[in-house]
């Protein structure tokens, strides 16, 4: 068990690349920050799993249904692992985290506050959103100071990489489809481009403690820009347009520059006031209640063991 004399000592340890373990006497501010970060991640995996689940019966063809099933299991499995380490931090129990999520008093990522209208939307989510989520998880993994979280991220990233390949394959299938399919895909890209780049959040504050404590390793704007530089040319090469009238390529540097983003709507979205937040939460609640008999049955099995 490690202990530190002061917050300054602790910060020096973490900045030096030190890894904090659950039994260490970490400062309360760090415990709370790492807890909130993992809770948000867990909630997002859970809500993402429920979205994916909606597409198991609707995905075109057996192979894609199987993939939707596997991705649902992945997301819920990730949420399970994350809720375990979040609960272990002793701030809230797992039941309390579920209650808060379903009551709408805690948060989940912006991208799960929108409606997935069509198969094209589902492909846009798989291609644009999964890649944005993966990029931000990779950045957390790189220098993550909380040991159990870093270990889970290793597996989460390997599995999300597999989702990203799936997203690329789905997009290329749509890109090489009929005019109707390409139009459907472009409509979906128009809907999902902004939520995807907003996933990285507004520019990081200069004194962001998450960066100082190596919970995050890169600034939001750096991650967002890297994503834009990669995905603008990919979309254009696949024959799609990027829905940003202010987009241009700097002729000297070759870099893609986007319009300024209005962050006000994101703030409301993150407070569960997004376009589809209410329905998403009521669906999550219904799923939780529908599955109560499974939890009860499992509890009985455990007790009888």
């Amino acid at each position: 068990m490690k202990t530190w004399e002061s917050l300054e000592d602790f910060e020096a340890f973490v900045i030096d690349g030190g890894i904090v373990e659950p039994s260490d006497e970490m400062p309360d501010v760090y415990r709370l920050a790492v807890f909130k970060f993992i809770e948000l991640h867990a909630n997002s995996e859970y809500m993402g799993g429920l979205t994916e689940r909606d597409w198991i019966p609707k995905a075109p063809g057996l192979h894609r249904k199987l993939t939707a099933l596997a991705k649902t299991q992945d997301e819920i499995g990730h949420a399970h692992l994350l809720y375990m380490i979040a609960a272990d931090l002793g701030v809230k129990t797992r039941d309390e985290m579920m209650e808060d999520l379903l009551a709408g008093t805690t948060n989940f990522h912006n991208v799960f506050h929108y409606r997935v209208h069509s198969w094209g939307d589902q492909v846009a989510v798989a291609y644009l959103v999964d890649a944005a989520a993966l990029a931000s998880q990779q950045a957390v993994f790189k220098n993550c100071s909380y040991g159990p979280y870093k270990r889970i991220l290793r597996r989460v990233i390997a599995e999300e990489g597999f989702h990203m390949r799936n997203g690329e394959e789905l997009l290329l299938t749509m890109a090489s489809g009929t005019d109707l399919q390409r139009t459907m895909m472009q409509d979906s890209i128009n809907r999902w481009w902004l939520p995807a780049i907003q996933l990285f959040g507004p520019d990081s504050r200069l004194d962001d403690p998450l960066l100082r404590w190596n919970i995050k390793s890169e600034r939001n704007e750096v991650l967002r820009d890297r994503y834009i530089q990669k995905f603008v040319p990919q979309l254009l090469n696949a024959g799609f347009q990027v829905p940003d009238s202010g987009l241009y390529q700097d002729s000297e540097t070759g870099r893609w520059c986007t319009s300024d983003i209005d962050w006000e709507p994101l703030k409301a979205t993150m407070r569960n006031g997004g376009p589809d937040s209410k329905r998403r939460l009521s669906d999550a609640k219904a799923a939780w209640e529908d599955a109560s008999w499974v939890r009860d049955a499992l509890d009985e099995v455990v007790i009888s063991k």
Partner: protein
Amino acid sequence: MLKAVRDAVAKVTDPEYPEVTIEQLGILERVFSSGESICIDLVPTRSGCPALEIIRTDVLAAAKDVGATSVSVKFCSDPVWTPDRITEDARRILAREFFVVIRNVDGSSKCPMCENSELENRSDVGSTPCRSVSWCAECRNPIEVIRR
């Protein structure tokens, strides 16, 4: 040609464990000639595994990369895959890099972090059908266990 294809295919890595090859996981069963074609038999870890199509694509690409023109890839139902087919090297990588361990024949398993052998089962199925989830109360890490 047969040897070149065999060597290339053996290096194909698993889609979910990028540091481990399909040969080390015991997925690659055999590579043989049949007339003009090269046949590759693979053993799926689970018949409904969603990664099978990706593995098939990667295996075909690896064979074509070394010049094979007529290749057929088949997933066999016999033999049946068990975790005993995973090599020692792969077990070390899985434990060290991914904190994934393999359930022993007697049902026990050991924490790859602290060697604690009293893991608590938390879920019979984890993020994939081939893994369950345990909790190590010693080092307080969730551990995924490859099922039998």
